[in-house]
C-alpha cells in the first residue's frame, strides 16, 4: 500500500484506474475513523489517493453570468465559512458551521461528505435543496450528475470504482436559504434531524431537503409545490396555515427510524418544527429585504 499524493485530476483518476481497490483520501475525518475502528483495511494491492493537493479540488469559483458557484470537492468547511463564499452559499455556510469542531471543519470536505453519504451528512441537505450538480471524473472522462441522483442509501452512492468527485455546482439564489439541525448537544453533534430550505424568488421555487430522517437525504416535492403556490412571492409572505401545512407535509414525508440517537417519533416532530421555523425565518428576512 502506498499513499499517492495527486496534484491534478488526471493523475488521480489514472491511479484509481491502475490500482482498482484504491481509496480516495480528502480530509480523512470519515476515512480514518473507519480505519481506526477496523472497518476499513486498505488492501495491500491498493493505494490511498490523497486529493488535498489537487488545485481544482481545493478551489471554488463564482460564475456571475450563470449565477452559479462551483466548489471544489476538497474545499473545507472552514473555507465555506469564509467570505465571499459564505454570502454566495449562505445555507452551506450555516451547515458548515454545524459540522464537528474547528479541527474537523479545518479538514473535512464536501466531497468526503458525499463520498460517505451518511443520511446525517450536514452538507447534503443543502446540496439537495439547491438541486446542485456534481462533476465526476474518471479515466473515461468527466460527467455531471444531479447530487440527488448520486445518493442511493445510507452510506451508498452510485459512484463507480475509479470515480473522483471534482466539484459541486450550485445556483446563487435570489431569495432566502437556511439550514437548521437538531442534535442533543449544542455543538459537535451528529444530526438527529435537519432541514434546508431555499426560497428562490426568481424562479418562484421552494426547495426543502431533510436529513437524518430517511435512508438518504429526502426532498419534499408535494409540500414544496403547495407552499410555493401559497406564497406571495412579491411580498414574501404566507398565511400561518400555509406554513403549518408545509411543516406537516415535511413531517409526513420524513421516513425516520428509531435508533440509539433518537426515536422516529421525535425525529418526525422535529422536522415539522424546523420546517415551520425556517419558513418563518425566510419569510421574515426575505420580506424585510424586499
Amino acid at each position, binding site marked *: 500500500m502506498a499513499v499517492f499524493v495527486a496534484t491534478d485530476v488526471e493523475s488521480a483518476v489514472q491511479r484509481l484506474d491502475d490500482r482498482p481497490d484504491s481509496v480516495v483520501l480528502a480530509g480523512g475525518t470519515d476515512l480514518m475513523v473507519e480505519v*481506526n*475502528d*477496523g472497518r476499513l483495511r486498505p488492501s495491500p494491492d491498493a493505494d490511498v489517493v490523497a486529493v488535498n493537493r489537487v488545485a481544482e479540488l481545493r478551489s471554488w469559483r463564482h460564475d456571475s453570468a450563470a449565477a452559479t458557484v462551483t466548489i471544489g470537492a476538497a474545499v473545507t468547511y472552514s473555507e465555506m465559512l469564509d467570505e465571499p463564499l459564505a454570502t454566495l452559499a449562505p445555507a452551506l455556510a*450555516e451547515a458548515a*458551521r*454545524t459540522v464537528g*469542531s474547528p479541527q474537523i471543519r479545518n479538514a473535512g470536505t464536501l466531497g468526503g461528505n458525499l463520498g460517505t453519504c451518511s443520511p446525517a451528512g450536514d452538507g447534503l441537505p443543502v446540496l439537495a435543496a439547491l438541486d446542485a450538480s456534481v462533476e465526476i471524473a474518471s479515466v473515461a472522462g468527466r460527467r455531471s450528475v444531479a447530487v440527488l441522483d448520486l445518493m442511493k442509501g445510507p452510506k451508498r452512492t452510485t459512484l463507480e470504482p475509479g470515480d473522483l468527485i471534482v466539484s459541486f455546482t450550485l445556483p446563487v439564489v435570489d431569495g432566502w436559504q*437556511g*439550514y*437548521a*439541525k*437538531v*442534535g*442533543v*448537544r*449544542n*455543538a*459537535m*453533534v*451528529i*444530526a438527529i434531524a*435537519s432541514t434546508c430550505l431555499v426560497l428562490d424568488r426568481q424562479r418562484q421555487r421552494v426547495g426543502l431537503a431533510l436529513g437524518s430522517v430517511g435512508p438518504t437525504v429526502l426532498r419534499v416535492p408535494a409540500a414544496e409545490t403547495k407552499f410555493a403556490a401559497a406564497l406571495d412571492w412579491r411580498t414574501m409572505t404566507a398565511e400561518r396555515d400555509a406554513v403549518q401545512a408545509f411543516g406537516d407535509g415535511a413531517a409526513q414525508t420524513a421516513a425516520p427510524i*428509531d*435508533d*440509539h*440517537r*433518537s*426515536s*422516529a*417519533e*421525535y425525529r418526525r*416532530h*422535529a422536522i415539522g*418544527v*424546523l420546517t415551520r*421555523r425556517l419558513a418563518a*425565518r425566510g419569510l421574515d428576512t426575505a420580506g424585510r429585504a424586499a
Partner: protein
Amino acid sequence: MTVLDAPSAIRPGTLGDSVLRPDGTAKVQGSFEFCSDLNAEGCVWGATLRSPHPYARIRSIDVSAAWRVPGVLAVITADDVPGQANYGLIVPDQPVFAADVVRYVGEPIAAVAGDDPEVCRRALAAIEVDYDVLEPLIDAEAALDPNTPAIHPDGNVISSQPVIHGDRDATGDVVVEATYEVGMQDQAFLGLEAALAIPDPGGRGLEVYVATQWMHEDRRQMADCLGLDPESVRLVLGGVGGAFGAREDISLQIHTSLLALRLGRPVRMAYDRAESFLGHVHRHPATMWMRHHATADGQLVKVESRMVFDGGAYASTSEAVLLNAVTQAPGPYRCPNAVIEGHAVRTNHLPCGAMRGFGVVQVCFAHESQMDKLADACGVDPWELRLQNAMHTGDTTITGQVVHNVAPVEECLRATAALPLPDEPVGGHPRADGSADVMKTPGGAGRTTDASDVVRGIGWGVSMKNLMYSAGFDDYSTARCRLADGVVTLKFATVEVGQGFVTLAGQIARSVLGVDDVVLGRIDTQVGSAGSTSASRQTWMSGGAVAAACRAVRDRLFLHVAEQHDVDPGQLEIDGTDVRDEASGWRIPVVDASAGVDIDETVEYRHPATEPLDENGQGDCHVGFVFVAHRAVVDVDPELGLVKVVQIATAQDVGRALNPLSITGQIEGGVAQGLGLAVMEEIIQTDGIIRNGNFTDYLLPTFLDMPDVVATLIEQPDPLAPLGAKGVGEPPTISSTPAIVAAIRDALRQVDGVGRPLDRVPVRPADICLPARASASSTTG
C-alpha cells in the same frame, strides 16, 4: 467562573494559596507523559479478546490459529492464570478470563501478545470461541425474583439493605410520590486505560506502571491472581488522565502482568475508546420509588423509598454504592422517620461500580425532585422548603448517626441565593454586529431556535455526601516525610488522578515545616497504602497523613534546635520560614536549623472509626458529610425539547479552602459531569448490547454546553478534619443534575401551567416536547 471570596495574604506555596499544578503546563501543551506513552526496551504489545454476547456458555476456545499469526508471542486464557481465578474489590466474583460462561458484552476471554498492535488484532480475530448463546437477564426487577435463574454462582442479588428509622407508621398531612430513573453514565476520562509490566529477571516478580486509583488494592488483587506475594508485585503510578471511579476496579493490570511474566519481557497494553467503554465499570442505573410525608406547612415527617440498582454482571462496589444510597436517601434534611429498602442486583449489563458521587447521585436526583413536588403540594417556595428542613450540626441522620461535622446546609442555601442571576437575556447578548449569538440559545450551532422560542427556568438542588470509606472499613493513609538541609522530601502512594494532591502535599509541608523546597517522591508501592483516590477522601486522609508526618518531623526538629540552642522545645513554633521561640521571640530560619540534620518519619493516619449497619440499617456508618447547594438557570425550547444551561450558581461547604484554584477546577468539572447526566450522557444497551460506546454517540458536554459557573466557598473549618478541610470532588456533580432538571420543569410549567414530570435522567428532547415518553431509545433503566 468566579470564586467570590478572595483569600487574604498567604505565604506563597502554603495552605490557602492557589498554587499551580506542577503538571498543568505539560498537560496543556501535550507533553505530559500519560501511562499510555510509556515504553521499555524490548517491549511488546498485549491485547484482549472480549465476548460479543451478553450471556453465553463457552463450549470451546480454540487458540491454535492465533498462534500461527506471524509475530504472535503469547496467547493466554483462564487456564494460564496461576493464582486465584477471580478478582473483585469487595468479593472476588469476576473471572480474570471467562472460562465457561460470559456474562456481559466485553467480558475478557483471552489475551495475546505480539510484536505490534496489528499482529495482536489479527491474532484475536483468529481465536475461535464456540458459544451457546443464552437469553440475557436485563431486567433488574426480574433479577430480584427468586424464580429467575441465577446468572452467577453467587446469585442475582448482590446486596439488599433496609434502613428503618423512627416511627415506621408515621404519616404526614401532605404526601407526594413518584418513581425516578437514572441512566448508566460513563466516567469518560480522557486518558485511556494503559499499563506497562516489566518482569524481574527470573520471573518471580514484576514492576507494573499503571494508571489507577488505589495502588495497594490493585497489588493485592493482582498478587492473588498471579500467585505471587504482594511484595513481589511493585506498582508505579503511570500518568493518569482522569479517573472518576472508573479506575478503582482492575481492568488490564492482571492481563498485562500475566503476559509479561509468561514472556519474560516487558508488555504494554492500552485500550482504545471502544474498549474502554467495555473495560471499566460505570455508574449504576437505578429505579427509585420515593414517597415523602410532610406536615401541611412542609416539615418532613417521613421518607419511604424502594430502590433497585442495576449492578451489571459482577459485584464490584455495588454493596457500598447501595449503602451510600439508602443511608442518604432523604438528602441533607432533618427526617425523623424513614422506611427505605434498597437492592443491588446482577444482570447481564455492563458491570457497574464507582463513579463520582457513588450512589448519592442517584438518590439525590430522586430526593430533590421530591422536595420540589412537596414544595408544590404545600404551596411553599422550593428554596424556602429546603431551608425549613435543612440539616444542622447535631442533627441525626436516618441511620441514627449524629452529624458532628460542620453542616452548613442553611449557609449553602443562603449564599447560593445571594449569588447574582445571569445578566444575559434569553438568547444571550447579541454579537458585535447586532446579530443573534446562536451559541447562546438551545440547539446552539444547529440554529434551531430563536430567542422567541425560549422559556427560562430556575431550579434548585441540594445534597449531602459522605466522605471516606464507611461501615467499619479500616481506612487509612500513609505518608513519609524527610527533612534534610532545609529540603523536604515527601513519599506517599496517594494516586494523583488530576485532583491535585501533588499540589496540596507540598503546600502542607511548607505550612507545617516552614520550608520552601519540597520534593515529591515517585508515587509507588514502596511505601504504605494511601487508600483510594475516591470518596472525596485524599485531602482529608492523605492530607492528614502528610500533615502528621510533617508534624512528627517538626517535633524532632524542635528537639534538635532545643538541644543546639538551649531553648525549651515545648516553646518552639514555626513562624513563616523560621523556627521561633514563643517565650523569647528568638528565631532561626528552618533552612539553618535543619542544616546537617536528616529527619525521617512515616505516619499512618486513620479517621475516626465507623461501624457497620445493623439489620435495620442503623449505626454510625459514615465518617462525615459534606454539603452543597446548586441553583440552575436553564433556557428551554419547549417545542423542540432542547436546552441551554445558562448558569450554575453554587455555594459549597469546603471546611477550609486549602487551594481555591484547585477547588474551582473541581467545581467546574463536577458541574460539567452533572450537566452531562442531566441532559445527555447515557450508555444505551439494547438486549445487553452497548449501542453507543464511542464519543460520536456517547455525548459529553463541550465548552459550548457549559454554563457560566458562579461559586462561593463556605469556609467553616471542620473540627473532625485534620486540616479543617473537607473533600470537594464529588459535591459539584451530585446536585447540579437535579437543579438543572428542576429548572427545565420550571420553564415547562410556565408554558402551560402543568409542565412535565421529567422523572428520568438524562432528560431527552422527546421527554420535554412529546406527549408520551419516547419508547425507542433506552432500555438500560
